[in-house]
C-alpha cells in the first residue's frame, strides 16, 4: 500500500458509520418541519436550521468517505453506482434545501413551500440511498427476505426445533442421530450446495454426499468427528460476517440456530444417515382418498367438495351458464365441434331437467368425434405426429393407429400406460423417442428421452434437469435419472454429468422404488416390470397427474399448475385426490372421469373475469372456469363444418382406406438430381387398353396441382384449377374397346420451383359386373416442349417423351374426396391433418417435445395469417360460392345463418344493421367472404365462454 493510502482507506471505512448522522439529522429536521406547518411552533425554526446545517455537512462528508471506500476497497457494480448517485443527489439537494431555507427566513421567498418540498425530496433520496446502501452490506434480499418465504421459515423453524430437542440430550439414539443429520444436510442444501455440490465442486469440496463431506476439500478434512473446534467447516461458518474467510459468503452467513445445529452434529460424532434428503417439497405418492363431505346441500360429489372449498374461501356459488353457452362449451370440450343450429334450438327448447347430463352422455358416446377431438390432446402429450424431424432417417415412429384405437375403444388408462411402456410394434414410438442422425448429447440419448417423457407426460415430474446433473428444482439426482433411463437401455449406461462421463455406472431403478423392483436381465423384462409397477393404484401421482390435465382442459387452469410439476401445491387437495381415487375406482375409465367433471355444477359455472394473466398463475383461488381460446384444430374444424372444408387431405385415415395417392409430374433434373418442378406447362400422355366387354360406366377422378385440361382420344373432357378439389367425371362416351389415349395439359403456377402433381384415377364398370381400375400413376409419359396439335390423338408418336416422375404425396396428403364412391362430402378433421402453416400459426405445436399447454396468446404472425394468409382466404372464397348457391344472396339470411352456425345465436338488430349498412341487402361473393372473415375473427367466436 502506498504511503498515506491507509488514511483514505480508514476514512473510507468510516463511511458506514458517518452516513447515520445525516440520516438522523435530516429525518428529524423534516419531522420538526412538519410540526411547523400551518404557522405553528415557530420556535422550532432555529433548531431545524442548525439540524439542517449539521445534516448537510455530514451528508457531504458521507459522500467523500463513500468515495474513498469505493476507490480504496474496489467496490463496483450497478448497485454501488446507484447508491453513489443517490448519495450525491441527497447531498446536493440538502445544500439546496438549506439555501432555500435561508432565503425564506430572509423573506426573499414568500413562504416556506419550496424549501419544504426540497427538504422532503432530500429525505426521500436519503431513504433510497440508505436502502441501496443497506442492500450492499446486507445483501439485496435483506428486506424482502422477511416477507413470506415458506422455505426459509420452514427451515429455520425446523432447525430451531431440532436444536431445542437435542441440545441438552447427552446421547442421541440412532433415530435422533438421523434426524439431526438430515437437519444439518438441509442447512447445507440451502446454503452450501450452490458452490459445494457434485455439480460445482468449489475448492474441491462437495457437501451433498457422505464421501464428499468426510473427504473434505483442497485444504484437507473439514470435519473432525466430535470436535467442532477442530473442524474447518465449523470454523468457517462461525466466523464474523465481515471476515473474508466466512462461509457461505461475506454478507450472507448462517443463522445462529443453524450454526449451533451444525456444531451439535459434529459434537455428536457427525453421523451420516442413509436416508435421502428431501430438500424440495414433494407430493406424497399415495392418494389421500378423502371422504365426501356430509353436511352440504350439493348432490354431485365434485360440487360437494367445491362447496367446502368455497365456504373455506368465503366464496358464494356463482351462477351457472345458460343453455346456449353450455351447449357450445360442452360440444367443443367433448367432441371439438360446434353444435349445429338445430341441435342448439332443440336443446334449448328441451324441458327435461336432466337434459345437460343426457347431452354430455350423448357426446361422450359419439366415439368417432370424441376420438378425433381428443387425439390432439394425446398427440401433444405423447409427442406423436405425422411429420417432423427424425422421420427422414427412420429415427422416429408414429403411434397414431394405436392411439386412435385406444381412444375409440375408451381403453382403460392403466392399460394405455402399460402398452406405452411395454409396447407392441404399434405403440413403441413413445419410448423410442426421436433419434436424429449422428451423435447426440448424453442427456438426449433415446433411453433418457424415454425417462424424461414418461416423467413429464405421465408422472408430472421433471427428469430433464436431473438428466444432466442433480436437479436444482427438485430432489431428483443424476443417479436417479440414469437409473430410470437404464431400464430402457440394452447396455449398461455410464453416467454423464453435463455431457462428460464420470466413470460411474447407472443402477437400474424406477424413480419411486417403493412401488416395486424393476431390475431384470433384459430390457423386455424390465419394461414388463415397469409397466406393472407404474400403474399400481399406489402410484397416486400418475392418476393425479392425468386428472389434473383433464381438469385443466375443461376449466382452463389445473388444480396444480404448472401441470407438469405435480409436486406443487394444489389449490384443493381433496378435489384432486378424490377425482383420482374415483378414476381408479371406475376402472381407469377416461370417459367416466370426464363425465364426473362435466356433469358437475362446477364445470357449468360462468367463466371468471381476470384483469391479467398473472392472477391465473399465482395465488389462484378457484371461482369457476376460465375463458379459453379455440385450439387451431377447433378453429379449423369449425370452418370446415360451416364455411368450406378447411383441409382436403388427411395423413391418417381411420377407416384404413389405402389409396395409392401418388402424384406424378414431368421429371425435372438439375445436376443429375430430380428437383422440384419449375413453373410452367407440361404435357402428359398415357395409352390404355380397354377390353371388349361393354362398358356400363367409366369414372375419372382427377386433381391437379395447380391446373389441368383433360383429353380422351382427342376430345377435351374437363378442366380444373384447384388441387384441393377432386373432379369426378363420367367418361364412358369417349372410350372404346382397344387402345385409348388419355392426355393432360398440366400447369404449375407460381414464380419459383414448387411442388406440382397430377392425381388421376379411372374405374371402368363393365356390363358383366366387373370393375377395372386404371392405375393412377404408371405408364405416363411427359414433355416440357409444346408438341404438335396431334399430340392428344392416339396415333401420335411419343417415343421421345420421358417417363414421368412419381412425386409421392408428401406435399399434399391423402385427399379425402378421392374416392369412386359418391358419398357425402367428408370433413378432414384437423387432428388427422399433417401440421399445416395455418394451424402452426394458430398454436398447434411441432411435436418434437412434449407439449402440455399451448400458447393461447394472440400474436402478430397469427393475425397476419388470418388477415392475408392465402390459404385461409381461399377457403373463405370457396365457402362464399357454396353459400350463394345454397342460401341465396339475401344479406339478412346469410348473416342470420352465419351467426347461428358460428355463434349459436341470431344477430341482434344492431348487429344486423351494421352488416346491412356495410353490404346492402344483396350479397355477392366478396361481401359473403368478408362477412365470414369478420365473424370468424370475433372474440366471441374464437373463445370458449
Amino acid at each position, binding site marked *: 500500500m502506498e504511503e498515506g493510502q491507509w488514511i483514505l482507506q480508514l476514512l473510507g471505512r468510516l463511511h458506514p458509520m458517518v452516513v447515520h448522522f445525516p440520516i438522523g439529522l435530516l429525518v428529524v429536521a423534516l419531522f420538526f418541519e412538519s410540526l411547523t406547518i400551518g404557522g405553528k411552533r415557530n420556535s422550532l425554526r432555529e433548531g431545524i436550521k442548525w439540524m439542517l446545517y449539521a445534516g448537510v455537512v455530514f451528508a457531504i462528508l458521507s459522500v467523500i468517505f463513500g468515495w474513498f471506500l469505493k476507490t480504496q476497497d474496489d467496490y463496483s457494480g450497478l448497485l454501488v453506482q446507484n447508491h453513489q448517485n443517490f448519495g450525491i443527489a441527497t447531498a446536493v439537494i440538502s445544500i439546496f434545501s438549506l439555501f432555500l431555507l435561508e432565503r425564506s427566513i430572509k423573506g426573499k421567498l414568500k413562504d416556506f413551500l419550496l424549501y419544504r418540498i426540497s427538504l422532503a425530496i432530500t429525505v426521500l433520496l436519503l431513504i433510497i440511498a440508505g436502502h441501496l446502501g443497506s442492500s450492499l452490506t446486507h445483501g439485496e434480499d435483506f428486506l424482502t427476505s422477511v416477507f413470506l418465504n415458506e422455505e426459509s421459515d420452514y427451515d429455520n423453524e425446523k432447525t430451531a426445533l431440532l436444536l431445542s430437542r437435542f441440545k441438552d440430550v447427552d446421547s442421541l439414539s440412532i433415530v435422533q442421530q438421523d434426524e439431526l443429520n438430515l437437519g444439518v444436510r438441509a442447512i447445507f442444501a440451502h446454503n452450501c450446495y450452490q458452490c459445494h455440490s457434485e455439480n460445482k465442486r468449489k475448492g474441491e469440496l462437495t457437501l451433498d454426499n457422505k464421501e464428499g463431506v468426510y473427504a473434505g476439500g483442497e485444504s484437507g478434512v473439514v470435519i473432525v468427528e466430535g470436535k467442532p473446534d477442530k473442524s474447518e467447516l465449523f470454523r468457517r461458518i462461525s466466523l464474523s460476517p465481515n471476515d473474508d474467510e466466512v462461509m457461505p459468503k461475506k454478507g450472507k452467513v448462517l443463522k445462529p440456530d443453524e450454526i449451533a445445529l451444525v456444531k451439535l452434529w459434529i459434537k455428536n460424532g457427525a453421523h451420516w444417515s442413509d436416508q435421502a434428503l428431501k430438500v424440495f417439497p414433494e407430493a406424497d405418492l399415495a392418494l389421500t382418498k378423502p371422504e365426501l363431505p356430509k353436511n352440504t346441500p350439493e348432490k354431485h360429489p365434485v360440487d360437494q367438495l367445491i362447496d367446502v372449498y368455497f365456504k373455506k374461501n368465503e366464496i358464494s356459488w356463482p351462477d351457472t351458464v345458460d343453455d346456449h353457452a353450455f351447449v357450445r362449451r360442452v360440444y367443443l370440450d367433448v367432441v371439438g365441434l360446434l353444435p349445429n343450429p338445430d341441435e342448439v334450438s332443440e336443446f334449448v327448447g328441451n324441458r327435461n331437467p336432466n337434459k345437460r347430463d343426457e347431452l354430455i352422455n350423448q357426446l361422450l358416446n359419439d366415439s368417432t368425434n370424441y376420438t378425433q377431438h381428443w387425439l390432439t390432446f394425446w398427440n401433444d402429450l405423447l409427442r406423436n405426429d405425422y411429420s417432423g*424431424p*427424425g422421420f*427422414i432417417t427412420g429415427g422416429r415412429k408414429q403411434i397414431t393407429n394405436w392411439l386412435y384405437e385406444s381412444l375409440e375403444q375408451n381403453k382403460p388408462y392403466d392399460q394405455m400406460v402399460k402398452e406405452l411402456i411395454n409396447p407392441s410394434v404399434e405403440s413403441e414410438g413413445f419410448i423410442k423417442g*426421436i433419434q*436424429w*442422425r*449422428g*451423435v447426440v448429447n448424453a442427456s*438426449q440419448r433415446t433411453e433418457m428421452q424415454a425417462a424424461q417423457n414418461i416423467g413429464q407426460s405421465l408422472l408430472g415430474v*421433471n427428469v*430433464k*434437469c436431473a*438428466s444432466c446433473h442433480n*436437479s*436444482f*428444482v*427438485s430432489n431428483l439426482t443424476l443417479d436417479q435419472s440414469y437409473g430410470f433411463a437404464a431400464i430402457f437401455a440394452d447396455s449398461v449406461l455410464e453416467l454423464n454429468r453435463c455431457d462428460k462421463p464420470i466413470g460411474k455406472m447407472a443402477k437400474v431403478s424406477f424413480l419411486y422404488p417403493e412401488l416395486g423392483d424393476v431390475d431384470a436381465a433384459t430390457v423386455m423384462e424390465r419394461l414388463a416390470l415397469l409397466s406393472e409397477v407404474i400403474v399400481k393404484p399406489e402410484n397416486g401421482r400418475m392418476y393425479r397427474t392425468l386428472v389434473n390435465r383433464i381438469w385443466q382442459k375443461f376449466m382452463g387452469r389445473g388444480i396444480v399448475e404448472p401441470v*407438469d410439476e405435480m409436486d406443487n401445491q394444489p389449490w384443493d387437495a381433496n378435489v384432486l385426490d378424490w377425482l383420482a381415487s374415483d378414476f381408479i375406482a371406475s376402472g381407469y375409465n377416461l370417459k367416466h372421469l370426464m363425465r364426473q367433471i362435466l356433469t358437475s355444477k362446477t364445470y357449468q359455472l*360462468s367463466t371468471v*373475469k381476470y*384483469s*391479467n394473466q*398473472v392472477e391465473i398463475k399465482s395465488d389462484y383461488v378457484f371461482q369457476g372456469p376460465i*375463458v379459453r*381460446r379455440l385450439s387451431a384444430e377447433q378453429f379449423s374444424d369449425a370452418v370446415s363444418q360451416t364455411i368450406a372444408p378447411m383441409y382436403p387431405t388427411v395423413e391418417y385415415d381411420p377407416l384404413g382406406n389405402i389409396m395409392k395417392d401418388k402424384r406424378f409430374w414431368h421429371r425435372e433434373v438439375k*445436376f*443429375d438430381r430430380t*428437383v*422440384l418442378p419449375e413453373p410452367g406447362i407440361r404435357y402428359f400422355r398415357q395409352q390404355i387398353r380397354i377390353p371388349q366387354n361393354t362398358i356400363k360406366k367409366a369414372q375419372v377422378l382427377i386433381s391437379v396441382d395447380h391446373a389441368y385440361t383433360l383429353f380422351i382420344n382427342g376430345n377435351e373432357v374437363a378442366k380444373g384449377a384447384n388441387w384441393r378439389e377432386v373432379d369426378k367425371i363420367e367418361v364412358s362416351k369417349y372410350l372404346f374397346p382397344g387402345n385409348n389415349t388419355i392426355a393432360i395439359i398440366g400447369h404449375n403456377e407460381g*414464380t*419459383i420451383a*414448387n411442388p406440382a402433381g397430377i392425381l388421376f384415377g379411372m374405374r371402368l364398370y363393365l356390363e358383366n359386373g366387373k370393375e377395372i381400375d386404371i392405375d393412377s400413376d404408371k405408364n405416363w409419359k411427359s414433355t416440357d416442349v409444346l408438341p404438335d396439335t396431334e399430340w392428344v390423338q392416339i396415333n401420335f408418336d411419343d417415343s421421345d417423351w420421358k417417363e414421368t416422375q412419381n412425386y409421392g404425396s408428401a406435399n399434399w396428403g391423402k385427399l379425402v374426396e378421392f374416392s369412386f364412391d359418391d358419398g357425402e362430402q367428408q370433413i378432414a378433421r384437423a387432428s388427422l391433418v399433417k401440421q399445416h402453416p395455418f394451424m*402452426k400459426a394458430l398454436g398447434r405445436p*411441432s411435436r*418434437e417435445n412434449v407439449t402440455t399447454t399451448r*400458447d*393461447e396468446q394472440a*400474436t402478430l*404472425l*397469427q*393475425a*397476419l395469417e*388470418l*388477415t*392475408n*394468409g*392465402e390459404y385461409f*382466404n381461399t377457403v373463405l372464397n370457396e365457402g362464399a360460392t357454396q353459400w350463394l348457391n345454397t342460401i341465396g344472396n339475401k344479406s339478412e339470411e346469410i348473416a342470420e345463418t352465419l351467426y347461428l352456425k358460428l355463434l349459436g345465436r341470431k344477430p*341482434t338488430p344492431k348487429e344486423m344493421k351494421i*352488416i346491412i349498412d*356495410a353490404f346492402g341487402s344483396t350479397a355477392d361473393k*366478396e361481401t359473403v367472404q*368478408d362477412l365470414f*372473415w*369478420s365473424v370468424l375473427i*370475433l*372474440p*366471441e367466436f374464437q*373463445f370458449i*365462454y
Partner: protein
Amino acid sequence: MNAVDNKSRREFIKKMTAASLSAAATTIPTANFLSSCSRTEALASKADTVILLWMAGGMAHTETFDPKAYVPYEKGVESKRVLSTFPKSPTIVDGLHFSEGLEGIGSVMDKGAIIRSYKSADLGHILHTRHQYHWHTCYEPPQSVQAPHIGAWIAKELGPLNDVIPPFIAMGQRFTVGEAEELKAFHSAGFLGTEFGPFLIPDPSTGLDSVRPPKGMTMKRFEARYKLYKELANNSRVLENGSDYQRESLMRSMEQSYRLLNSPEAKVFDLSEESKETYDTYNTGRFGLGCLLAKRLAMNGGRFISVSTEYEPFLGWDTHENGHLRAAKMKELIDRPIAQLIKDLAESGHLDHTLIILASEFSRDAIMEGRPGLKVKDQVNQPDVIEDEKFYGMHRHFTDGSSVLMWGGGIKKGLVYGKTADERPCSSIENPVVIDQIHQSVYHALGIDSQTNYTIEGRPFYTTPDGHGKPILDLFT
C-alpha cells in the same frame, strides 16, 4: 422487461404510438412468464440490424474465401492432390486472396473482416439440417425443449426496430424440399413463443405479397372488411363475459396486422421501387433479390434478416458431384449481389449500424469427411484417380475449418482472423472459433447481455449453452 438500453430501442419506443404503448401495458406476452435473468448493466451497442447471408449446404472454404494450392483439372489427376480447383485472386486488402470468381466480395473486404478458423460442431454422421440447426440455435439437436433461432432471440430481446417490419425475417428457403421438417425445426422461436418466430419469405420477388391485403382484394375492400369486424366486435354481446385482457390481446394483434398490411411502409418490401439498373445488378436469382430486399429492410428498420442460398439436398452448395462447375455457378450467384449490398449500405451510412455475416454450416473437401481422425459413415464415393470431371471438386463434408465473413456494426475493417493449414487436412490451426463465439459476437454487437437467459421447465436456458460463450472482442474496433 430487460435493461438493455440502446439508441434503437429508444427510437423504437418513440415511434410507437401512445395507443400501442398503453395497449402493450395491459398485456403480458406469454414469454414474459419466463423469468428473465436480471441484467446488471446496460450495454453499449454498435449494431441494431443483422443480415445473415446463409451459404446453405456446406460451402468449401478452399474453393471460396480461403484458397489453397490450385490443381487444374486433367484426366488422371489424383484426388489427394486436389486442394483447390480455382486459382487465387487478390482482394483489395493487401495479402488477402480469395478464390477466383469472388472479386466482387474481394473488393469490399476493406470494409469487413474474415474469420478463417471456424470449426463446426462434431455431430458424427452428417445431416446438413442438424448442423444448420446447431449453427442457427447454438444448440445441438435434439434438445429437451425447443431451442430458439438466433433471429428469435434478437426479436425477443430487442423487438422490432420499425414496428411495421417484423423483427425476424427469413428469406430464400422453401419448406417443400427434402429435409423440410428438419429445416422447420430450427426456423422457430422455440420456447420463446411463436410471437418471435420467423416471417418467411421464400421468394423475395413476391415479398410484397406477404405484407399486402390478400390477393385480389382492393385496399378499399380491405379497409371496409376491417371496419365491419371492428364494429361487430365492439357490439358483440359477450363483452360482459370473460377477461378483457384476452379479448383485447386478440383484437390488438388484429389491429397490428391491419396496420402493417395497410401501412405505406410496406413499400419497403416492393422491389419494383428500385431502378432497373440496381435491380439488374442484384438479380442473379432469388438469392440476389434477397440481398436487394435485405438492403431495403436494413435501411428501413429491419431487425434480423436472413437471406439463404437455400438448402435443398444435393443442390446449391451441397455439391456431391461436379463440385468445381457448381461452385463456379454458386459464386456467380452470390458475388455480385453481396458486393453491391455492402457497397450500398456503406455509401448510405447504414453499414455502421448493420452487422452482416456470411457463413455456412460446414466446409467441404475432396478427401476428408467430418474431421481428421474420425470415421464417418456414408461418404461420397470419390475415386483416387479422377478420370471424369464430375469427380473434380469438393464433394465430402469437412467440419474442421471454414470461413465466416463479417461487415459493419463495429467490425474491424480489413481484418483476417485465424487461419487454416495450407496442406490437407486444411483444418483451423490458429484462433479456432466455435459457434458460441459467433453468436456472442453478434449479441455483443447488438448490446445483448451474454448471460441472457430464460427459465424454462425449471432451468435456465441461455442464448449460448450454459451462458459460456464469449464474444471475439478482437473482431471489433
